[in-house]
């Protein structure tokens, strides 16, 4: 009885961890496959030191020259830093940290803004929903144009966003917000410039020259073939233009994924622990089933003499153990449900918790348990009944 209780608890734990593994796996797959509103695949970020003299000129030169390299589809200069702050476990893909104070009351204290050039949308593969992109002729644009995302439009409650002039001027406070007088020329699809822990926010794109900001990154979209050759060409080009500066290149999809490193690591830990706990539970089960098969050896012999097939015997022995696993499932399912929900609340974008991980978790463990038990029960069922019914 005590042994059975212990095995139920062990299986409860194993099933809980197994369900957790499936839930995490599901959420991680969901996150990694979610349409982010931009396409990080085949995009690399080349870092450019903003403190450099003529950083913008150097960036523009590099950007222009890079476009001539075969395999480079598009390049764009941005003020944001697309880099991996790995020691903090934080990845900043763009403007997540760049907030501008604003007095637009609908938008709260500050909104993220990014300074980009006219190739940004193309390079990032971001859809323009309304209006126009920044002009390609770098010097002919009026400096008061901005592009906003759909969330911005929604927050402002605009029906016709194009042509709206922002009034970023508080009453009686004596300062003017950075977006005052800017005109909305385009609206883009919302895209996830932050991790999926955070909900989508309103944001603003300005032209990097108009914003008078230094470049931080050159984004480059590559063709998928001969990528390593293209990258080595990009490196040589960098060395010829900014020879004292280190060439730092990172893949955008890596950076996106690295935002969830913690989760991926935890998923691995949970998966390994669930394996370990299944193994442990199975050791107990193996011992118990050996004991039970031994104790019921005479009964098995009798039943075989009266026509029980091997299959009948397997069912007979396994039935009780299936019950143990079912009991384990009964206690673990609510716990797993609670813990999974708790974990998922951390994400702004998450899977719906349905029955599947529970089904998979339970069945996986049941299958492993049955395999363990069948080792003993097959052995018992195959024995010659005469041997076991010999005079005691």
């Amino acid at each position, binding site marked *: 009885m005590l042994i059975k209780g212990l095995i139920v608890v062990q299986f409860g734990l194993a099933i809980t961890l197994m369900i957790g593994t499936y839930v995490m796996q599901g959420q991680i797959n969901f996150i990694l496959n979610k349409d982010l509103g931009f396409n990080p695949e085949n995009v690399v970020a080349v870092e450019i030191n903003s403190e450099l003299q003529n950083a913008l000129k150097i960036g523009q030169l590099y950007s222009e020259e890079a476009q001539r390299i075969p395999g480079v589809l598009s390049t764009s200069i941005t003020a944001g830093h697309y880099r991996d702050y790995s020691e903090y476990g934080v990845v900043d893909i763009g403007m997540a940290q760049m907030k501008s104070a604003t007095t637009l009351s609908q938008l709260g204290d500050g909104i993220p803004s990014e300074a980009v050039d006219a190739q940004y949308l193309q390079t990032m593969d971001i859809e323009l929903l309304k209006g126009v992109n920044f002009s390609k002729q770098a010097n002919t644009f009026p400096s008061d144009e901005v592009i906003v995302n759909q969330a911005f439009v929604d927050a402002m409650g605009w029906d016709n966003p194009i042509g709206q002039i922002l009034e970023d001027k508080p009453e009686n406070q004596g300062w003017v917000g950075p977006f005052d007088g800017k005109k909305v020329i385009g609206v883009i699809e919302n895209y996830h410039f932050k991790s999926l822990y955070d909900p989508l926010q309103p944001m603003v794109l300005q032209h990097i020259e108009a914003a008078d900001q230094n470049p931080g990154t050159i984004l480059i979209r590559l063709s998928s073939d001969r990528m390593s050759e293209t990258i080595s060409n990009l490196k040589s080009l960098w060395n010829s233009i900014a020879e004292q500066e280190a060439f730092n290149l990172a893949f955008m999809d890596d950076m996106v994924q690295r935002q969830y490193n913690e989760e991926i690591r935890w998923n691995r830990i949970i998966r390994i622990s669930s394996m370990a706990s299944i193994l442990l539970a199975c050791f107990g089960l193996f011992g118990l089933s050996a004991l039970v098969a031994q104790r019921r050896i*005479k*009964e098995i012999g009798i*039943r075989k*003499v*009266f*026509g029980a097939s091997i299959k009948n015997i397997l069912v007979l022995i396994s039935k009780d153990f299936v019950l143990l696993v079912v009991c384990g499932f009964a206690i673990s399912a609510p716990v797993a449900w609670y813990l999974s929900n708790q974990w998922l609340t951390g994400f702004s974008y998450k899977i719906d918790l349905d029955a599947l991980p529970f089904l998979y978790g339970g069945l996986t463990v049941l299958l492993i348990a049955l395999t363990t038990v069948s080792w003993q029960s097959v052995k018992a069922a195959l024995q010659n009944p*005469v041997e076991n019914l010999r005079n005691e």
Partner: protein
Amino acid sequence: MIKLRNIDRYIDKRLQRNFILKGIDLDIAEGDFVSIMGPSGAGKSTLLNIIGFLDDANEGEYYFLDEPVHGLNEKQKSEYHRSYIGFVFQAYHLIDELTVYENIEMPLLYRKVKGSQRKSMVADMLDRFNIVAKKDLFPNQLSGGQQQLVGVARALIGSPKLILADEPTGNLHSDQSKEIMETFKKLNKEDGVTIIQVTHSDEMATYGDRIINLQDGAVTENNPYEEE
């Protein structure tokens, strides 16, 4: 019904071959009531087990209802155990964890018998052996004679054509033994069930029509009474 030809059963021990049965020829017809006798270790149980497909001969041929037994697979043997052969043991071999009712019902679980039909079949058996009042008791709450009645009821529930009984009365008092033997005799005469029993008792042996004497794994005397 049963035809054994030159049956050998042996155990190989290192360089030595120990014969348990050697050169057994035996015919048993449907409706026979046979008693196998012989000293301890003569191979009686082994012979009975071979006849009941619980053990295999090493050499020779065995035909059951004209069917070669060596050609049967595990599944077909199970099929025969379900529908043709009932066993009764000296040590009863009831399942301790099951009630009298459940013990008698057990063989039916391995045949396709409906629940309601099972119920009436078990009820008939309980009735026939006067153990209705004991149906919810466990084997260890019964006397040896009562346990063996349950054992016989269990063997009969599948209406077998052949009953194999290995010293069915070996552990019983003479009154109880007689009761079992009368039951066998009635079964044999009225229902035409073939019965093969192993016994050490001359008295029990005479309930049968025919005695086979076994000594050192060989038949020494076949039908001594008929030849007289």
